[in-house]
Structure formats: structure tokens, C-alpha cells
């Protein structure tokens, strides 16, 4: 009756559940080694960390209670920030419509598409702060540079998404509109736009939110908005004012998010 093997052998390694494979272990090791290496490069010692934490605590101490005496400066900056966000989104979205159309494979010949896609790629790759700096050098300090910088960022983001959306539409619907003798513009109006308008509005509202965030900091490089006031407060060690500004910025962004989400729900996008 000895069908059952009474001696117990340990389960072979390969069959142990949830064990990490060789590759996974190697990757983890590599990540740890890399982290140690980089931390050494950055000269991060325990001493430095502890000083830092100490400093951080002092910092927080200086930030609280927040300085409420300079509300007019604050208000000026916030107003400019909102202006930059609104104008940049409006102009950028308006530009993204034609640029996106020109960057769609099914709308234009190959070389036009490549050129448009190239433009969009360049717009996307440059950080808005960098474009803000370039525009400051080109058109001077002030909100104009900020607006132009964010227009570029908008075209890069919305333009790409819009072009991708157009490339995904059904060609059959367009074919039928063409067969009636409609002009290119009419084909776009009745064949293309109904299919992509919903998504386009979605992209535009998302970009409004993103531009709102970005407009709070282009001022650091002189392109207008609350960022300028923030930067000078730092330079003057007025940390309690920094706290006020940060709190306001966070509040605006949160409110902005809520408003944008509500609008999207209301318009069903």
C-alpha cells in the first residue's frame, strides 16, 4: 500500500510561487547600485541630509504664519497669471485646429504632414520655461513672452492629439461627403469635424488646466504672472509671503480643476 511517497523532498526552486526571477533580481540590484552611485555623485551624506532637514524645519517655521500684508501685489500677480492662461489657451487652441489638420495623414499630402508634425514635435520638446526665456529675450519682459511661450506649448500638445484623432476617423463617412461634390472645407466641416469635435474640446479643456499651472511659474524667468512675485520673495527671504503665494496658487489650481471638470461634464466631453 505504498503508493504514497513518504519521504518529503523540498519543492524545487523553480516551482516556488511568487519567487523573483533572475532578471527581476538583477534589475533590482542594478537600480540599487545606480542609486548608490548617483547619491555619491551628488555629495549626499548623512550630515548634509540632517542639516537639510534642520533647515527645512526652520524654513517651515519662517513660512508660518503666512504674510497677509501684500494682498495687492498678490492680486496683481494672480490677475496677470489668469490673463496669460486664458489668452494663451484661446490663441493656442485656435492655432492647433489648422495645424492639427495639416498634420493628419488622411488630410494632406505626405510632405505637408511631415512638416506639420515636425513643427508640433519641436513645440512639444521644449519646456515652456525655456520657450519663455527665449521669448523674453525676443519680445522683452512681461506677460507677452509668457503668452507666446504657452501658445507654443499648447500647439505642441493639442496639435498632436488633434492630429492623432483625425488620423483615426472613419474614411467612409468622408468619402460620402466628397462624392456629393463638396469642397475641401465642407468635407472637413461635415465629414471630419463631427467625428473629432468632442475629443478636441476635451483636449482644449485639459490644456486650459495645464496652462493655468504653467502660467504660475513663467514669471520666474520674467514672463509675467505670479511667478515673478514668488521669485523676488525668495530672493528677499520673505518666506512668509512665499507661503501666502503658494497657498493662493494651490487654491487657484484646485478651483481651476474643479471648474474645468464640471464644464466637461456639462458639455458631455
Amino acid at each position, binding site marked *: 500500500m505504498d503508493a504514497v511517497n513518504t519521504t518529503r523532498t523540498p519543492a524545487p526552486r523553480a516551482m516556488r510561487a511568487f519567487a523573483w526571477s533572475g532578471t527581476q533580481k538583477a534589475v533590482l540590484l542594478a537600480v540599487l547600485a545606480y542609486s548608490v552611485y548617483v547619491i555619491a555623485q551628488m555629495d549626499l551624506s548623512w550630515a548634509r541630509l540632517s542639516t537639510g532637514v534642520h533647515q527645512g524645519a526652520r524654513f517651515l517655521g519662517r513660512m508660518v504664519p503666512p504674510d497677509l500684508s501684500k494682498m495687492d501685489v498678490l492680486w496683481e500677480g494672480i490677475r496677470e497669471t489668469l490673463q496669460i492662461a486664458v489668452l494663451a489657451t484661446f490663441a493656442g487652441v485656435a492655432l492647433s485646429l489648422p495645424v492639427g489638420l495639416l498634420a493628419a495623414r488622411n488630410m494632406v499630402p505626405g510632405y505637408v504632414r511631415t512638416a506639420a508634425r515636425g513643427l508640433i514635435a519641436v513645440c512639444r520638446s521644449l519646456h515652456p520655461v525655456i520657450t519663455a526665456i527665449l521669448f523674453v529675450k525676443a519680445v522683452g519682459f512681461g506677460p507677452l513672452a509668457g503668452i507666446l511661450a504657452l501658445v507654443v506649448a499648447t500647439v505642441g500638445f493639442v496639435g498632436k492629439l488633434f492630429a492623432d484623432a483625425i488620423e483615426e476617423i*472613419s474614411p*467612409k*463617412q468622408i*468619402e*460620402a*461627403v*466628397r*462624392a*456629393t*461634390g*463638396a*469642397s475641401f*472645407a*465642407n*468635407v472637413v*466641416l*461635415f*465629414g471630419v469635424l*463631427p*467625428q473629432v469635435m*468632442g475629443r478636441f474640446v476635451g483636449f482644449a479643456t485639459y490644456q486650459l488646466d495645464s496652462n493655468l499651472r504653467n502660467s504660475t511659474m513663467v514669471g520666474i524667468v520674467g514672463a509675467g504672472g505670479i511667478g515673478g512675485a514668488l521669485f523676488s520673495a525668495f530672493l528677499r527671504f520673505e518666506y512668509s509671503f512665499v507661503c501666502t503665494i503658494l497657498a493662493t496658487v494651490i487654491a487657484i489650481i484646485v478651483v481651476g480643476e474643479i471648474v474645468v471638470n464640471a464644464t466637461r461634464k456639462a458639455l458631455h466631453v
Partner: protein
Amino acid sequence: MTPSLHAGSLHIQQLVKEYRPGVPVLKSIDLRIDGTGLTSIIGPSGTGKSTLIRCINRLVDPTAGQIWLDVAGERLDMAQLHGRALRRSRRHIGMVFQEYNLVERLTVMENLLTGRLGYLSAWKAWRRKFPAEDFERAYQLLDVIGLGSFAHQRADALSGGQRQRVGIARALMQQPAILLADEPTSSLDPKTSVEIIQLLREQGRERGIPVIVNIHDVELARRHSDRIVGMTGGHVVYDGPPAGLTDAHLQTIYGGQAWMQ
């Protein structure tokens, strides 16, 4: 119903189409279609029926040959037209598609109005400022096709048969000189297919325009056409009344050696 303003006639001469060089799908087609009446083009898959129909309104560009369209006293070679002239002449050719090709997110009414886009500037089209007669005609057509209460429904809320009716109505909104249909019944059930083909035939008669239909179902073609054109291997092998279509002809068209090459 008032007949179409300009009834047209079609004269295809030596039409050739090669999708790949040296491999012609249409091998020198000669065809003359005028008057009223529904002409069915039958033949096995791949024999160029759809290509032939699409060459007429240049959704496909022919490789060689002429496509003469007589309309409004003018004689145009569709094969040679480009740009604006091509768009102008497309206004006179109505087309019905196998998969209806309605703009799904637009309403039935807007889909009908699409048929008049060839006559409207982009600015007016964006604001939907179509002339009053267009709206009138649209409502009348909706009544004719039995979808009077569907004007505000979105196109994607309709059944297949309903969508095809809207497709036909859209084509008729153009007040076309000829009406083309590329396998209008292939996506529909048998009963609806009969209704659609009858609708096409009636509307052609009432407006006094020729209707050219591409069709798979031979019985359907036989029972509802005024003329049958049988194609195989890129050639026309039968051209005559349905009554004259014998089994021998069908053998040539569907069972013969030619289409297997």
C-alpha cells in the same frame, strides 16, 4: 414628384483600370446608359463592378478611357476633370454606399443636407444656413422614405435599413442626373434589400434619371432591374434585359474560366 432638373446619360468608352501596373482590373469597358430605368451590374467578387461604379464619379481614378456624362446640355469627360470642375460635376452624380457612409454623429436632417454641400460656401455650411427650399425638399424626402419623424435623430441611432434610406435620400437631395449605388443591399437582410432596391427603382422612374446598381444577389437583380450588365474578368459579357439572362450566361459570368485567371 417633379423629374430631376437635368436627367443625364452616361457613355463609357474603353475604360481601363489597373491598381497595379500590368494587372488590369477593368479591361476596356464600353457601356452606354441613358433614359430611365434601373441597370444592375452583376458578377463575381473582384471582377471590377465596384471599381467601375467608382470610376464614374472618380472616387477611383481610371487608368485610361473616357467617361462621358451628358448633363444640362453639357458633355463632360469625367476621366479628365480635376479640382473645381470635378467637384461641380460630382454634384450631378448621386451615390449610395454599401455601408451607408452616413456621418454618424450628425442628425438625419444634417445628413440629408450634406447632399447639398456642393452648392454651399463653407461659411454658410458651418452656420447651417442652407436655402429654405433645401429644408423643404429634405422634409418631403423624409416623408417619401417613411422617416418623417426621424429628422432630429442621430444617424447612429438608426437601423441598417433606415440608414440606407437616409443614404438614398441624401443622394436624391443632390437632384442628381444619374444615381449610382455600390452594393446598396449587401449589408441588409433579404426583406429590407427588396425594399431598398424598389425604392431606388421608383425614385429613378419618378425623376426620370438612370440608376446604376452594383449587386451580388442575382435573383434580386433579375426581379427588380430594367437592364442587366454582367461582368466577369474585367469585361462586360452580358448586356440586356433580365428576361434574356439565361443559365448559360450565368455560367459564363460566375462559373466560367475567365474570372478564375
